């Protein structure tokens, strides 16, 4: 029989709330025996998230963020900086116990499997993409999705960005790209290394269409039914507390 997982569907929240929800779901999974959960969501206002180990000042143009009303947040996951464009980006998150057989215990292999669900979903939109280790998905040689995973509380939490119609010009106004990183790749414009679904397909797609394809990708990859649900009251309580952490100066500026 096909298992049911919980889908928390296209919830729109600000950056600290989104990051608090992902962490709360991971914390609650074994403590309260909540279901395996997939979230699809959007950030309002648009935000930059940086990896746990990244330097805020180095990665983010804070003046530009202020000017454009873009939030800045530090994730609990490693990896790079992401621009979450409210009008052009969907983020997913994925929470299952480490003991779950459908996900390999090896971290690199598990990236491949979870990113495989995104690749499958994108295929339904006509986007031919592939997983590129360690943590990217590329289409036509350009990055269309970035992903990051942590393991804690006996649980795998992976979240990632899917670029639907992100404003790539704005992206590189709010993100700082290190000179060391550009020169190594010998590419004139970093913009050329990133794409989005609209650019790839040469046509507009609505968020609903992309959402439907991603749901199908996850359902088929893990052979599950995604059933729309909400956070439990325990999770909502955790979100309130965790949100304060993500808002705190100590957290955001720790590196």
């Amino acid at each position, binding site marked *: 029989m096909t298992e049911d997982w919980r889908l928390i569907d296209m919830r729109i929240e600000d950056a600290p709330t989104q990051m608090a929800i992902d962490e709360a779901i991971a914390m609650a999974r074994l403590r309260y025996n909540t279901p395996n959960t997939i979230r699809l969501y959007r950030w309002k206002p648009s935000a930059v998230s940086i*990896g*746990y*180990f990244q330097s805020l000042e180095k990665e983010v143009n804070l003046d530009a963020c202020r000017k454009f009303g873009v939030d800045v947040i530090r994730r609990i996951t*490693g990896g790079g900086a992401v621009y979450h464009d409210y009008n052009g980006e969907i983020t997913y998150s994925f929470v299952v116990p480490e003991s779950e057989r459908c996900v390999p215990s090896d971290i690199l292999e598990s990236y491949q499997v979870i990113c495989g669900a995104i690749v499958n979903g994108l295929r339904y939109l006509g986007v031919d993409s592939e997983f590129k280790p360690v943590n990217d998905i590329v289409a036509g040689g350009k990055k269309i999705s970035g992903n990051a995973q942590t393991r804690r509380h006996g649980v795998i939490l992976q979240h990632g960005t899917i670029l639907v119609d992100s404003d790539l010009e704005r992206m590189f106004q709010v993100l700082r790209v*290190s000179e060391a990183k550009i020169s190594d790749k010998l590419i004139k414009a970093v913009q050329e290394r990133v794409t989005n679904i609209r650019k790839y397909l040469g046509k507009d797609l609505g968020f609903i269409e992309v959402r439907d394809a991603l749901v199908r990708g996850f359902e088929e990859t893990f052979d599950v039914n995604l059933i729309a649900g909400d956070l439990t009251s325990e999770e909502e309580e955790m979100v309130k507390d965790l949100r304060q952490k993500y808002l705190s100066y100590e957290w955001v500026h720790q590196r």
Partner: protein
Amino acid sequence: MGASKMKAEYKIPGGKLLSCEIGIEDEVIKTIKISGDFFMHPEDAINELEVTLLGTSIQSYQDRILKFFQKREITLYGVSQQDFITVIQIAIDSE
């Protein structure tokens, strides 16, 4: 001799970027902050690594790093133990 603050950036072959800010006084590490877009599991091990290096001489910090990773079960992606040594050495040599 005396005190100095140094910075280094090191582009790891394969894509990730590693940065380091280090304060050295009389050849001893007094402050250190490592940053980058790599992955370390568990994540908070980075704070322990930095604390381990405080008070270490610039001659013996490599040993400290290797021992730190021997002692603990830490998984690295996009970065290696040697990369941490490399970026710190670049910073030290930049004086």
